[in-house]
């Protein structure tokens, strides 16, 4: 049976993990390689690295990080942040990433998805979708937000579900959907958004933004029909550990990889 995936997400700035783990004494919480190895050992099903380096001069640091992680960690690795061209994607894949995640660059140039999928295959191309609820509508509607990197962002007016459909047609093989409304609240994922999206697109949907406890992971997978859950703070800050999360989900009848 296909297992639902638990994916820790690490923000990397100039080669160091920011918002590092608090509870692990024996690993360097700022070192992406130690952190990746730790999560692999814990039973993480995949890893996502977001490069939040502000200056493009320092992008090569990320290639080095990915290369060193890939030497030690043998689970799938997705890298996002700052990828703007086919050359950027190629460099990341050659360094050892299995998938690349496109967000703002894909909204600004949707053809980038098609170019990437044509050259590397859809399985390599992930759409990072930041969605914000439009309050004025009686039926739920979400808009795409871009350039959300530093707490800001621009609302595009683009309908998030329509954009996701278009991105699938262009060739993305997976969608990580991040609810701007839920992100950081620890009150749970936006389940309406997840369910809408998961029922609309044919590719796997990964839930992101809002997880504060294990029930939230369960809701996203069960009610939100997500194929995987991305989480940062509940694992990084030691609120919960991955084996504990998997045990909990298994007890609720969710198929997981033990």
């Amino acid at each position, binding site marked *: *049976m*296909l297992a639902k*995936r638990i994916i820790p997400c690490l923000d990397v700035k100039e080669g160091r993990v920011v918002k590092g783990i608090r509870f692990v004494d024996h690993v360097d919480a700022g070192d992406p390689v130690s952190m990746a190895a730790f999560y692999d050992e814990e039973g993480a099903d995949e890893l996502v690295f977001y490069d939040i380096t502000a200056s493009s001069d320092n992008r090569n640091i990320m290639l080095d990080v990915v290369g060193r992680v890939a030497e030690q960690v*043998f*689970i799938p690795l997705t890298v996002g942040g700052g990828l703007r061209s086919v050359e950027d994607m190629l460099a990341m*894949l*050659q360094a*050892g990433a299995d998938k690349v995640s496109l967000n703002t660059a894909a909204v600004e140039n949707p053809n980038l998805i098609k170019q990437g999928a044509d050259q*590397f295959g859809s399985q390599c191309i992930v759409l990072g979708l930041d969605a914000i609820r439009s309050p004025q509508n009686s039926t739920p509607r979400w808009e795409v937000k871009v350039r959300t990197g530093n707490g800001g962002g621009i609302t595009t007016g683009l309908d998030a579900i329509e954009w996701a459909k278009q991105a699938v047609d262009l060739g993305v093989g997976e969608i990580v959907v991040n609810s701007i409304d839920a992100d950081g609240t620890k009150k749970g994922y936006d389940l309406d958004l997840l369910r809408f999206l998961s029922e609309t697109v044919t590719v796997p949907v990964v839930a992101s933004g809002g997880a504060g406890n294990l029930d939230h992971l369960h809701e996203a997978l069960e009610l939100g029909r997500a194929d995987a859950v991305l989480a940062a703070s509940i694992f990084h800050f030691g609120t919960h550990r991955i084996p504990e999360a998997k045990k909990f989900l298994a007890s609720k009848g969710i198929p997981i990889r033990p």
Partner: protein
Amino acid sequence: MSSPTIAIVNYQAGNLRSVQKALEKFGATAKISSNPKEIDGADGIVFPGQGANDSSMRALRERGLVEPIQRYIRRGKPFLGVCLGLQLLLEASDEGIEPGLGVMKGRTRRLPEGRKIPHMGWNQVRFSNSHRVLGQTTVGRHPVLDGLKSGSFFYFVHSYYADPEERALVIGTTTYGLDFCSAVGWDNVTAVQFHPEKSGRNGLKVYENFVKLVTVV
């Protein structure tokens, strides 16, 4: 043999580094190569693959690799196909018009509708308790799966699956909408639909077993 040389056939962009690192972990000298001579001279080859049937077969042809790979397999040297590297062993594919390598009879088919495609993530592989050696059915687990429990989880990413005519070649089966062949193995040839280099400890065991096979041949 001290350190066997294993060539990783390079014919399309993608992450080959993980395959290389996995082989090196078990003492092999792993070379990423698109040079037919270098591939011919290797003690074993890993034939990876992602992307589409047609572009991959064309890339193999452009690099003059079709015949060397077929010959390599005929010569009885250890061969491990991964993902598309399993599908391309068949004669034809639903995914395109280019014929495959034709090492096995049968074709590559599209996974059935009704579930998310690609089939992406960790799924279980049930192992067969027999495998084919020199045309004879041999009781016991195929050596590349040594030390692994039937039902172990491996990482998959694919939209098509291999459907070989000779069912005796199938050494692993997985369920996703239907039961499909997730591993084949006979004589010197092994090929798997999942990505052992992305399947954590279980996957590394497959590479360890393959390096052992290459070392004893």
